[in-house]
Every structure is written in structure tokens, then in C-alpha cells.
């Protein structure tokens, strides 16, 4: 199911540590301004994530918020890292798979002794993985 996605990982100090846009290959990249909007929405959705993560024992919170044409899905790890995904189409299973794969990737990344927790992720390997899973589960 094609659609536009914006993925962000938010650390437990509420700071963003990773962001990425996932668009179907056919569409051209979004304008800079649009990217800000995605980030604004992702940031605001943290309120809802923080509220809803206590209501379930699952890590995948499904759609937590809606904003204009955007849905916001979220995933909370045990260490309260929050994965936030903005999407304009419903794709519950794909998103769940994407989150699970990203969770695993993130955990592997965080085991790197040179990576300090909660610091921005600047790893091209991580980036590639995220793109790959995005293509696999979201935009394909």
C-alpha cells in the first residue's frame, strides 16, 4: 500500500534521536516546510503516546492520534524510547512489522559501546536498515 510516512525515534528525554521520511519511490521528496509540519505533528503526538502507553501492556500502540490527513502510530520500547510514525494510509500490520524490525535494529545499535543512549543516531547502516524496512513493510 503506497503512502507517505514520516518516522521518528524519540528518546526518553523527549528529544528526537532519529527521523526519516519514507515515500514511495515514484513521488518526489517533500518540501522542507512539509517536513517541519510532520515533525510538529510527531512532537504533539507524544502527549497521546505518553497517555496511551499506560493503558496497554503491548509495545505497539496502534494509531494514537490523527491530524488532518495524518495518522500517528506509535511504539514504546521498554526503556521508553518512542517510535512515532506518521502515515496517511492505514496499514496496521505493515506498521507493526516495521516497528518490530526497527526495534530490533535500534537495540542492536544501542548495544554499540560507542553509542551513547539518547544521543542522535548518525549511523548510515541504521539509516539504510530503516529505509530497507520502510520499503519492505510500508511503501511496497
Amino acid at each position, binding site marked *: 500500500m503506497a503512502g507517505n510516512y514520516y518516522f521518528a525515534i524519540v528518546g526518553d*528525554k*523527549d*528529544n*528526537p534521536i532519529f527521523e526519516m521520511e519514507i515515500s514511495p519511490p515514484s513521488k518526489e521528496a517533500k518540501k*522542507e516546510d512539509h*517536513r*517541519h509540519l510532520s*515533525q*510538529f*505533528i510527531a*512532537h*504533539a*503526538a*507524544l*502527549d*497521546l503516546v505518553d*497517555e496511551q502507553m499506560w493503558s496497554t501492556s503491548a509495545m505497539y500502540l496502534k494509531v494514537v492520534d*490523527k491530524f*488532518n*490527513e495524518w*495518522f500517528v502510530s506509535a511504539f514504546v520500547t521498554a526503556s521508553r524510547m518512542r517510535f512515532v510514525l506518521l502515515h496517511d494510509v*492505514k496499514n496496521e500490520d505493515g506498521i507493526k512489522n516495521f516497528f518490530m524490525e526497527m526495534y530490533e535494529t535500534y537495540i542492536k545499535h544501542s548495544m554499540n559501546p560507542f553509542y551513547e543512549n539518547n544521543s542522535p543516531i548518525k549511523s548510515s547502516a541504521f539509516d539504510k536498515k530503516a529505509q530497507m524496512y520502510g520499503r519492505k513493510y510500508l511503501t511496497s
Partner: protein
Amino acid sequence: METERKPVITYAGEPAVFQQLQNGLVHGLPQESVEWRRSYGRAPRHVTLEASFEPFSEATLVDDMSTLVRRPCLHTFWTDCPDIETYKSSTRESLQSWLAQLRQHNVVDWLVVVVESAEARSKTNKLLPRSSVLDKVKADINSKHGDRCITLLDPSKSDSRSAGSLHSLLTKLRHFLLIGFNRVLVRFEDSMRSQREKRTSSDWSFCRYFPLQEELAFVFGQLGLCDEALVQYDELDALFTQFILNSCAGDTPRWLETFSQPVQGWQGLAVPASCSEEMRNALCNREMSLLAFRNYLYARQCVLLKKLDRTPEIAQRTITFLFNTINELGLMGLEIQQGGVACWAFVTCINVLDMCAEIPADTAAQQGIGVHTASLYDQARLKLYSLGELCGLLPGDEPTSSQLHLTVTLSAGMGDNSPAVEKLKDALAGHDAFQKCYLELSELAMGTYKHMGRLRLARLVGRQLATFHLRLGQAAHAASLLTDALKTYQEEGWGRLAAQLLLQLAHCYQLMGDRQRYTQTCALVAASEHVPHQTRLEFTERLRAPAAGAEPRLTLAAEEVVSVRETRLAAPDSEPYPGARLEVRVTVESRLPAPVALSRARADLQPALAAEQVSRSTSSASTSSAGSVRRGGVARRPSSPAAADGPAAGGGELCLEPALEYKQDRSLSAATLVCRNMFKVLRRKDSGQPAALARPSHLPAAAFQQSLEAADVTLQPGATELVLSARVQQPGTYVVRHLQLSCPALDLTLDLARPLRFAVKSSPHQVSLNKSAGDLLAGTVQPMTLQIVCGSEPLPGPSAVRLQCSRGLSVRAADGDPAAPWSDELQLHVPPLEAFQSARLPVSMLSQLAHVKDGVSVVHKVDIICPWSAAPVEAELHFLLPFSAAFKVHTSNVRKFLQVVMHGLNTAEFELTRPALTVVNDAPVELTPLNETAETLVVSSETSVSYMWEMVLSKETPPVRSQFSVEYRAVDAETRQRFKFDFTVSDYRTLLSVTCRMEPLKGAEFCRSGSICQLHVTVAQEDGTAELRAVMYEVLADQNMWAICGRSSGVLDMGPDTRHVLQLEVMPLTGGFLPLPTVRLSRYIPANKESTEGRALVTGSSLPRLEPFAAGQVYSASRGQQVHVLATSAPGLADRSADVSLS
């Protein structure tokens, strides 16, 4: 309409009888609820039944499962025939035919009611059983249905019997109605389910199915089971949603085309109390738009939720409803007037919000609803904004004619004039109304979000509201909103969002004309890495711009723009001293994208408060330990002046101090580091103070009164090292806390996170006397150096330092004439010295070698008298002695020998030559050397040297004072020195001699252990001149070897040439070579008899006493002798064991 959905009960028989009762029954039925036991294991529910009554007709019996409406659930037969005759004649027949009809259609739900009038009852023959009409009826119908036949007493009477009878009729009626109804319902549900299973077939239509399931919902609603009804609608909702989603995947059923028609109206959600048949018909006729259908379905859900008292859930569901519907409209690709959806969503939101407002305030429901209403307000706001955008109503826009036309079109499609629609129409009518409405909604949304703790959402609304305010030109409003939002984003580290806000804020402040804040914000933008490079450059230009015509200089806090990486003294090893030029290197990192020329950079220099001052080291502390025990190196200084920054300063730093703990004997027990500000550093970090924006810098008034400066430097992007310098005149401790970078019209100030602290002090000159490697030795020339370290003040002219030695120590210049005399004072010339230069002057020291009893070293003091200090510097020198001397007198009967032993105390070797021993006093003693006079002996700690002389005595033996002297030379030294050792020998003449001899008893050849032997002791006076009256002897023997029999001591009278021979019986206790018992002689002074007679006690005491002889006065001839004792000859039991043990 609702009444027609009640279950139907038909009546037959005598209509007149029934109609008389009808009203009572219609009202009586719903009075009590009945327990409904349901099929399929569903939980039993209590329901209230209502029913409508219809005359019986055969047509209603047709089994048609397409609808529930007007389905009879129970058939009744009414008769009031008074007696059996009448019954037999007419009623029976009609009853029978009625039953036959029912049976034909397999209907089992029926009831026969026989109404008995009072008189009829009384007439009946009570004697004959089964003679009543009821009995007859029961007999006629199958007996197993006997309970379906009941009697009703005359209802016209109002006594208790007839009331009870009516009650039991109602109960029965309810019971059978429910059974019948359940049967109908189960069949209906089955048929409905089978309909649903066919949904994949091509000719299935949702429009046909929907009314079916809705009817079920109606029935549940009718029964008061609103939750069950809601479930039906929810199922329908889900089913429909699924169809839409599937259609996106390409699986579009034909009926869905109904909903594919363009949407013409965008009436908002209205929740009517009852369901409109019109809508149902429209659906059945496939004339309904998707939006209208969704509206209808959701309205039904709302009605049920309201009935269930779950209004808050409406608010919650509305959000999902809105999104789903908009999403579906998009998925279906429906044609709709631009803005229509926004109108619809707005009106829906407002309607739902109105509904929520009906919930009484201050209830838990009202509390819980807040999060949802906030979202609804937010939605309404967003939709209104998008409408405003479309219709040209945003501030600053003027609607064009096409936009005006659009407004009209939209208004036309809004439908009936409900308050919500009115509100929207008003808002779209003009700028002011639009503004008012938008601001109101925004404030409501923001306020509610804040109230519900959703701060981030509130910030998002706030930011959009700020944008709106900006368009209105209300920059101040916008600025406060943006500042709030900025704080949140900065705290949480969302740099890109913060950068966006900064750009907006800069615009705000520019509009407001707030130069201070504007410039500050520009600086922040220029320094932000999240802003495009071009924009940053532009803002950097703006920073430079106010330089042009600004009259009051602006001071900006520059923490966000420039950060200090490192501050240090340029020459950290040299201590700054008054008057010196002080250089401080500050490495700053500029985040500005372009180089900035600074007219001046300066750092303020403030004297530290007294409490913070580094303790000064005094001159005495650094020099007193000079000398032989000095541990080398210069005295401890604060390791580097730059390192002295820190304590009490930043607060974030650990303030560590060394702490030494000593044991009682003053030896070190532990060395630890103590953190003085632990609680300050480790204190809990609360959600810290965010970096405030546009904060005017708070500099103390005294800042920059004295400063380190540099002029004309360029601040490059990235790191720049600034070298700031100043001349400091006053000694003291200084702190550098602030840095100021001045552009032509702008001052950037920043506080140093770690203030630089250093001490400027006039350090004193230092003098120390240092030895070379190894210990100082007395008696030989020792090279030493006098070190003079110049303090912060230079020593300009030649000056002199005087050394004053204590007695026994002499000094001379080492580099001068080797023949120069030794003296105890020396004047040394010091060359001119620059500050912190040092000079080393070599000197030679010689400590006289003297015999020190039991000592290994001598201590000397040197006073160093310097021209620059009044008190002399005192140095304590410890000289080790190279060797020591001791003498000993040896006796051989009456001959005497003198031995002098030289012990080396040091590993250094000394050659000894030409020993000499002379009698200093006039004692008539001749000393005959027994040494080789030419011999050279070497003494060291490993080798001792002895010299021997025989004393040739004459008659007189007064004490001899003698002096031993020997020439010594350290093995590596050139000159010889003479070592002298004075001593006195006294009481050396031999007075008595003692000889012991052990003999076995007569007859025995050997001494044997266990048998008595004889000890012969001979005591002879050797020196006739000695005055000896009495001598006491004591035989001392080892008690393990000898057992002395009889007296072992006694007093002997002595005189010139007296000779006593004593015989003692002694028994050896063991065998072997046993040392002889020794005999101790002591001078015996008897008790003075005269004293008892009252005379003076001068000459002696009343008790006898003993005085020991000096070592040389008694010669023991048999000392060291041993006697051979054989083991016992007559073996006894004990001895044998001893033998055994020996062998």
C-alpha cells in the same frame, strides 16, 4: 412510527370482549419487566415489553422473514360465554377453527382467555367438577396446552380478586409474548445472518441488508436493550468500512456505486431524537450520498449512546468518525465541493460539542471528556482555518469574487439552519466574525489541552494561533505564544522545530521593534544548525546591520552563539607576579556561519573574594627543610597557577581537596580526596532551567572595570583562539568570569562556565643549602651548594649572603683557593638575578670529628643571613660520624693491658695510621705499645680495628687519664686528620685472686654425677698495700649442674698476703664437661658497732653491707675452666633412664 415496531398480538373470538380490555392491557404490559432467557447462550436480560394488538387475520400468519415489523408474536382468543350451553352452541366452533388455522401454519404461540363475569361464576354448579366453561375449553384443546388457557374474572369489578386475576393474566401474557417474540427473533436473526453470509455474491446489496439489521437494532431498542442495539449499528459500521477498504483493493461490489455519486450536500451531523423513515427509504432507493449515510449511521449511534448515558463516548467516537469519513471520501475518490468536507466536519464538531456541553459540569464525565472536546475544538479550528483560507477570510486577504461565490455555494450545501450551521455561516460572512470565531476556538482548544496536560498539543495550537496573530499584526500576542512553544521545543531538544519558531519570533520582534530581543533572536537563528545556510548568512548580516545607526549599544547574552572551549593562562608554569604582563588564551567556538570582525574582545578581571583566595605559601615554609634530610626538589608550590581555579566557582565542578589522616605517632595513616561540594554537584537534576531566550545579560556592576583585552580580532566560524592580555599591578587572586566580544555596535557577553582563577603574587626569594648525593660525613670535607631562587622581584645588584656555622663546623668557598682557611663564617657574593632565576653557589663544609658517646651523628646549624630578609634562614645539617672508639682493660693476674677498639659506623672506608696512646696526667704508668706502628689499617662498618698497650704499673695506681689519637683519612681524601679519644682508667690494680679446683672424694678417680665432690677455693690477696679487712665470698653454681652442700658463702678476714683455702662439698647433677662454679668476692663492710652506742653514723650503718669490686681488682684464675664429670657409676633406676636418654 416507533409504536409500529412493537411486537404484535392478534386477538380473535369475541372482539367486543377484547376491546373492552384493550386499554388496560396496553398499559399494563410494560408495567413490569420480565426476565428474558435467550438462546445461543447469551446472558439473560430483563426487558420491558410493549405490544400492539391487532385483530387476527390469516394473512399475518404467512411466514415472511424479510421484516420483523408487524410480525405477530402471539395469538389470543377471547370469549366471555357465560355457560356451557352457549359455549357448546357457538364459541366452541369458532375456537376450534381458530386453532386449526394456527396449527396449519405451525404457530404454537397462542393463548385463550375466558372472561368470567361474577354472576356467571356464581351460577356454575359447584358440585359438579369440570363443569365450567374453562374446563370445557381446556378439554377441547389439547390437554398438554392447558396452561395456555386462562380465565379472567370480571374486570369491571374492582375487588381484589379480579385485580389479582388481571395481574396473573398480564404475567401470563408477558410470558407467552416473550416466548413467541423470542422465537420470531431467533428466526429473524438466522435469516439475517444467512443474508450476511451472501455478501460476496454479486447481487447482494448493502442497501438491502442495512434495514434488516437496523430492524433488529430497533427491536432491541424497543426492549430497552440499547447496548444491544448499538452493537448492531457498530457491526453495520464495521461492515461498511470493510467494504470501502476492500473496494480500494479493487474489489468493488456493484451496490457500492450507489455511494460513488458526487456529494451534493454537506449537512453536518444532526442527532434527531427518532430515526427518520425518509433516510431509510432514501437508502433503500439508493439515493443517499456517502456523507449522508455516514451521518445517519453515526446519528443513530449517538442516539443510542445518549440513551445509554455514554455521552463522553460520543466525543471520543466523533474524532474517529470524522477521520474515517474523510478518509473514506478520499478512498472512494468522491467528487465534492472544495470546502464542503470542512463545513461538514466543522458543523459536526460544533454539534457534538454542544451535546457534550449538556453534561453537567464538575462531574467525572465532564472531566474525562476534556481530552476529546479539546481535540474537537482543535478539529473545528483547523477546519475553520482551511475554510478561511479557501474563502479569503484570513487576515490580510480580501475575498475575490470566485471566493465569494464559493462561500455562497458552501452555505447552500449546509442544510437546515441549526445553531451550528448558523455559527459557520456567521463566521464565513466576514473577516471580523471569522477572526472572532477562530480565536475563540483556538483559545478553547489550547486551554482545554493545557488543562488536560497535553502541553505539546497546546503548543502546536499555540504556534498556529501565533501565525494567525502575526497575520493580524498582533506581534506581541504571537511572540508570547511562540516563546512558550519555543521553550518546550528547546527543552525537549527538537532543534528543527525550535529553529522554525525562532524564525517566526525574529519576525515578531522585528514587527514589535524590540531591538534587544530581535537582535538576540537573530543571533540565535544565525547560530542554529537547523536553519538553511543561506538564511543563517542572512541573519548574520542582520546582526551586523544594527551596527550602522544604533545609538545605545546592545548587549546580548551570547551563550547560544559562542561557547568557550578552554580558558588558560598563556604561560601556565610561570606564576604571574605584580607588574608582569598577563596573557590568557581563550578558545571560543563561534556558531555563526560567517566570520565576524570584533573591534575588541575582553575578559573581566575581578579580584576573588577573600574567602576564595588561595592560601599563600610563606617563605619560611619553603626553605626550612633545607639540609641533609631534605627530600630534594624545590618546596611544594601550587602546581600551576592555572590549576588553582575551581573551588566554589562553577558549582558543576567537583571541588576536591586532599585530606591526610595521621596515626597517633604522626605517621601517615591514609591519604584521601574529599569532595567539599558533593551535595551541590550530586543534587537531583529537576527539569532544569531552560536557556531563557532574549535574556538580557546580568553582569555585576563591577564587571569589566579591569579587563584582559585584545583588539581587532576576527571571530571565525568554528574555533578561534583569542589572546587577551593585561598588566596586573596588585597582587591577589583574580577570577575571570565573563567574556565580552564587541562588534562595532553590539556587545556579546557570555559567562564562563568554568571561571579562570589565578593568583598574582609577589613570591619571595628562596634560599636553601643543599647537600650532594649521599649523607654528610663528619670529619671530612663535604661539598654543598647554596641555592638562591629569585622571587618575583629581581635581584638587581650584586649582593652578599653570609653563612654562620655553629661550633665545630667550618666552611669555606669551594671554588676559591684550596688553601683558604676554614672558618665558621663565610660571605658569598650573589650575582644579579632576574625574576625566577636561580643561582647555585658551591661551598665546602667540614664538621670536626669528635668522640660522641653512643652517637652516630652530630647536628650543626647554619644561619643564612640574606640582605632581603631580617631574620636569618636557619638550616639544620646532620653529619654522620664515620667511626667511634672504645677502650677496655684486660687483666692477666697482676699484669694489665689496654685495648682501644675503633668501630666503623659508615660504609665509607677510612685509613688509620700512627696510633698513639699517651698518659695525660702524672700517673706513674708506662704504656708499652704492642702494635705495629707503621701499619695502616682500614676501618669501616664491616671492619673494626683494635690497638693494644700493656700498662706497666708501679706501686701507686691512681686513675690514669689517657688520650688515644690516630691519624685518619677517608680512602678517597687527600689530607689526613687526627682523631682523638680521651678516656680514664681507674681501679685497675689486682687486689685479690681466686682459684677453684674440683676434686673427687678420696678414693674416687673421677668426679661422677650424683656423688659428692670437693671444691677447693683459694682466695689470696695479691696486693699487700690494699686495705681489705673482710671479704665476702659467694659460690655461685648453675642449679642444674651443681648441688652445693653446706654453706655456699661466708666472710673471710683479709690481711696482707692472706691466703684462704676453702673446701666445699659439691655434687654434680649431670655428667659431661661442666663449668666450675664461680666465686664472687665482694668487699664486706661490717655493721658499725659504735653507731649502736649513740655515736655519729658517719662511718657506717648499723647493718653490714657489701661493695662490689671493680672489674680489674679481682683476678679469677680459673674462670672458664671445666671439669669432666662421668655419668653415675652405680646405675640406678633414674640414672639408667638418663643414660638411655643420652644414648
